[in-house]
């Protein structure tokens, strides 16, 4: 079943065409990577899907319903939640308070009103759900520390944990591995895979090609705002236009 359908979206900033006619379809339960060289339009595409920017034309459908141009908080309520490129946490709140705040849309609701994901415990109590997520993401031991005191890798994990509190069906991660050391990278990558195993579809933008190839089921490559290739890791790495656009010239790649 398709969870996200992006049809011919385009975004112009004045005369500059940042995203040109991109279409992407993501089936449920996949980890999809979105890669491309610097300035290729990845982050703009991300903003267009999550509602932080309105497309000039085209449409975005989430679970069959059109969400184009809706406010981001409305899109989040439908179950499409995104994280940010630079680590984004509530710096002065404790780790637990951050995750607690993530439950905003569940506060004051009864469980029957929020659709549940069978592999994730339901939000019958925000306290229980917060503890469960902290445990699941390996943050329990730091739960009382102020978020700003955590190392970069942990803050990244915390921003994913906060997003999980919303109970997303599709989680969009904007460069979740950027700026992390190798240990932190493999830790976060492992968490992302286990989220998929818990029934959450993932779309991630990443700069670090090696980790994208290892964790994504399918990869979409864009360059100059256009989609140039789509497929699994093998198909992408052997695609000449991808090699040329992203990994460098064919000769130097083979050498």
């Amino acid at each position, binding site marked *: 079943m398709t969870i996200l359908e992006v049809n011919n979206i385009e975004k112009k900033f004045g005369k500059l065409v940042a995203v040109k006619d991109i279409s992407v379809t993501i089936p449920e339960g996949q980890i999809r990577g979105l890669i491309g060289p610097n300035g290729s339009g990845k982050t703009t595409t991300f903003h267009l899907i999550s509602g932080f920017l309105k497309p000039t034309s085209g449409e975005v459908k989430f679970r069959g319903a059109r969400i184009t141009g809706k406010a981001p908080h409305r899109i989040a309520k439908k179950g499409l939640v995104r994280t940010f490129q630079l680590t984004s946490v509530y710096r002065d709140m404790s780790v637990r308070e951050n995750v607690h705040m993530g439950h*905003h849309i569940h506060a004051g609701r009864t469980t029957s009103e929020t659709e549940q994901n069978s592999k994730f415990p339901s939000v019958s109590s925000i306290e229980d759900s917060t503890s469960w997520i902290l445990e699941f993401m390996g943050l329990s031991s730091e739960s009382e520390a102020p978020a700003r005191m955590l190392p970069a890798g942990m803050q990244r994990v915390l921003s994913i944990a906060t997003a999980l509190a919303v109970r997303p069906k599709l989680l969009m991660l904007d460069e979740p591995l950027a700026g992390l050391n190798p240990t932190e990278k493999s830790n976060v990558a492992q968490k992302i895979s286990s989220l998929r195993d818990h029934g959450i579809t993932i779309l991630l933008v990443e700069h670090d090609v090696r980790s994208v190839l290892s964790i994504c089921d399918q990869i979409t490559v864009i360059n100059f705002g256009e989609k140039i290739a789509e497929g699994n890791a093998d198909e992408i790495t052997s695609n000449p236009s991808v090699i040329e656009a992203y990994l460098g010239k064919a000769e130097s790649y083979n050498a």
Partner: protein
Amino acid sequence: MTIAQFITSTPRRFVYACIGTAIAAPLLVALPHALSSYWQSVLVIFTLNAIMIMGYRLITTMGGWSFSHVATAGLGAYTTAILMTLEVPWSFWITLFLGAGIAGLFALLIAYPVLRTRHYYFFLSTFAAGEALRQGYIQFKGITGGGFGIAFIPRPEGFLGIDFDTTMGFYYLALTAALIIWLLLYRFDLSRLGRTIKAVAANEELSESIGINTWGHRTLPFVLGSVIAGFAGSLSANFNGTINPMDFGSILMFKLVAAAIVGGVSTFFGPILGLLYLTALEEAFRTWAEWVPLLWGASVIAVLMLWSGGLEMAVIRGFKLLKAFLLNRNSNHSAKTLDS
């Protein structure tokens, strides 16, 4: 909800606040009896400004420092002044709530443009909106009396044996309003809604991404804070008996902003503490009044340079030291008893 549930669901700090208020209230009621009529007036004006700054602090929780607060308060004042000086004067109590409502409505109208701006731009855009409003008070002479303003605003009818025509009687009115507003706003500050507003101020993008309606959570404190301002404006017009556009200019606005900086805004009591400091300074230098603005300005700069966080942080640090000292003494004491 049973009463027991209500009590357990109430934040503990609010319960303490209620107890503290109950203890302080008789002292505050007795206070004017010990004061000369001059100091009674100072006390009333301080109380009205305290209401104003509680509303101002509510606005700062959404991350923006408004400069239209005092001009907005003017809407409450003019509503009361105009309606109470008609041939068939309106009841003060109706104009009080109507004025607060009009101030809130004005905030709601300017919210769309000014809340699109952030930081300095928010400060500048609210300054422009406030100044435009104040110019309105001057220009629409037919309704507002122009630069001369409106005089002979009557005080409300007394009740329960309290005569609002006296300064002391009016003080009780202002005090009652201030205590009610303080308890309501403090409860609001501790509520989930209050916390969410602060979360939006701390990180707007993140808040939006987890499904918080950030627009609504910025507009609400701006409008509610303005309602409080209108309330205070209406009361002060009534207390002074006369208003003119100068009353709602940048001098009072600067005093509020300075109080918020000197006192700090991370706690509820910070701005009130700042206001108390500025008022004390003003009264101490009453015979050298020309020095007062200079001293206020110097205080603001000194706090920003030496003591960011303001007086509230000094108080909090003081309490922590006191607590540590007491705990230490207790443990020393128990150590001694163990020795013997």
